[in-house]
């Protein structure tokens, strides 16, 4: 558990460091678009209505599984590429951590890299709902 927390912190620090190089918004978006394009393919069998997280404008799919070591692993996708890029960042932070750490994760990196507006409740991209769903998976898998 403490390993997981340290890992989450370390990953977030890495992301913040990467974004420090970008001079303006367009560079950030170009990077997000690249991340979106590189996001691991989503298993088509997981593209079910149960796994859909409806935003107002872009849709997000999320699937969670428990690995043999007891950590949580996520796959996600979106129909909008910038949302996919944001999804990729969130997964990079939370993938393969213990359910307890996922359920209580504080994703402070989002604000540090200036993308917090994308995770605000008024933003219609489904991303905040995705993070909440990931935490719910964390809670659910702890209970099993």
């Amino acid at each position, binding site marked *: 558990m403490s390993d997981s927390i340290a890992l989450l912190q370390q990953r977030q620090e890495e992301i913040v460091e990467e974004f420090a190089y970008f001079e*303006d*918004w*367009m560079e950030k*978006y*170009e990077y997000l*678009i690249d991340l979106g394009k590189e996001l691991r393919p989503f298993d088509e069998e997981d593209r079910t209505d149960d796994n859909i997280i409806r935003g*107002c*404008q*872009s*849709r997000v799919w999320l699937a969670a599984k428990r690995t043999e070591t007891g950590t949580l692993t996520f796959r996600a996708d979106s*129909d*909008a*590429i*910038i*949302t996919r890029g944001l999804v990729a960042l969130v997964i990079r932070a939370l993938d393969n951590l213990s359910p307890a750490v996922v359920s209580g994760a504080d994703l402070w990196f989002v604000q540090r890299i200036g993308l917090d507006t994308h995770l605000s409740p008024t933003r*219609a*991209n489904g991303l905040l709902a995705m993070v909440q769903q990931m935490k719910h998976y964390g809670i659910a898998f702890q209970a099993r």
Partner: protein
Amino acid sequence: MLNSSLIRSQFPILSREVNGQPLVYLDHAASAQKPIAVIEAQREYLMHLHANVHRGVHSLSQQATDAFEKARETVRVHLNASCTEEIIWTAGATDAINLVAQSWGKTNIKSGDVIVVTRMEHHANIVPWQMLAEDKGARLEVVEIHENGELMEDDFQLKLKMKPKLVSFLHVSNTLGTINDVKRWTRESHAVGAKVLVDGCQSVPHMEVDVQAIGCDFYVFSGHKTYGPTGIGVLFGKKELLEAMPPWRGGGEMIDTVSFEKGTTYAGLPHKFEAGTPHISGAIGLGVALDWMRGVGLKAIGDHENTLGAQARHLLEKVDGIRFIGTSEKRTGVVSFLVDGVHPYDIGTLLDPMGIAVRTGHHCTQPLMDFYDVPGTVRASFGVYNTLQEVDALAAGVERAVRMLR
């Protein structure tokens, strides 16, 4: 063309920057920016004129009432209604449609009755009728459209054969820009005994509207889309219909006498439908907005926006894979589009740091998105203050965004 710099100087918000870029505001169809005349009218009211209306014998209340009722007369003239009793203040167009659904609808719609709307309606002209239909056991029938965004005439005639009690449609589509032949549709709907409501949210800001020439029974529009304040809208209704309709909301302002013993009697028109203290400064601001538009010239405003829309289409056509949604010959300047392989949300997200404000998404017309089988569109919509330079910025911005996204 209009004198853009003179007009723009009257809109304080246009001088601000967004994300370090000059604001290019192309979301007029969602809400118009406000000229200084409207801002000053509301300020003047709050600074020097505020009191509750229709109540006090004191001078301030009289003056506030005079200003409030003068605005009603301005709306009457603007729509060419025959008398001010036909002009009801509402909180907006949505509120006005709900008033008709809950008052006229509750007393006139019965189980098995048919209400007709079209595929291109805004949710505000769908959901109130769905709620009424569910409540009454009535049926909502939808007139389908062609690919170009025009109504399917055969289907319209078919739906009229069902002898609807009410036919409700928009004058101009907020998503497609299609200008509907509301005069003929009204005549043909009346011929089968239906009452007619016209949603004028996207027409009043752009063109002359004459409710007597159209002949409709109800006409609604919102203040904030026509350079006026938010929270104020208008229901026009034919006097004899409004008189026969029961009040919707009860409270102060709308009564004649109230008694526990003898019951309550209601005020006459238009106050019967205006329970509670109204949005006085909003009504006054809306009156000033309509006067301001007339000062510029309604035809000049419409022509200007059409020029901008045509130029936007001309420039955007060069974007590889662009698809315009709404291609009728009879339309306003609004431009809705998609680009192959690119999500509209991504285009809107990338235009934002460039200072360009467009709307992306379904524009509160989900049934229309289902028809075109798209998740949404990017929509640029123009007002009197927009310029050809801004259209250039839009086209360049879209090209840049698409290059980044592909």
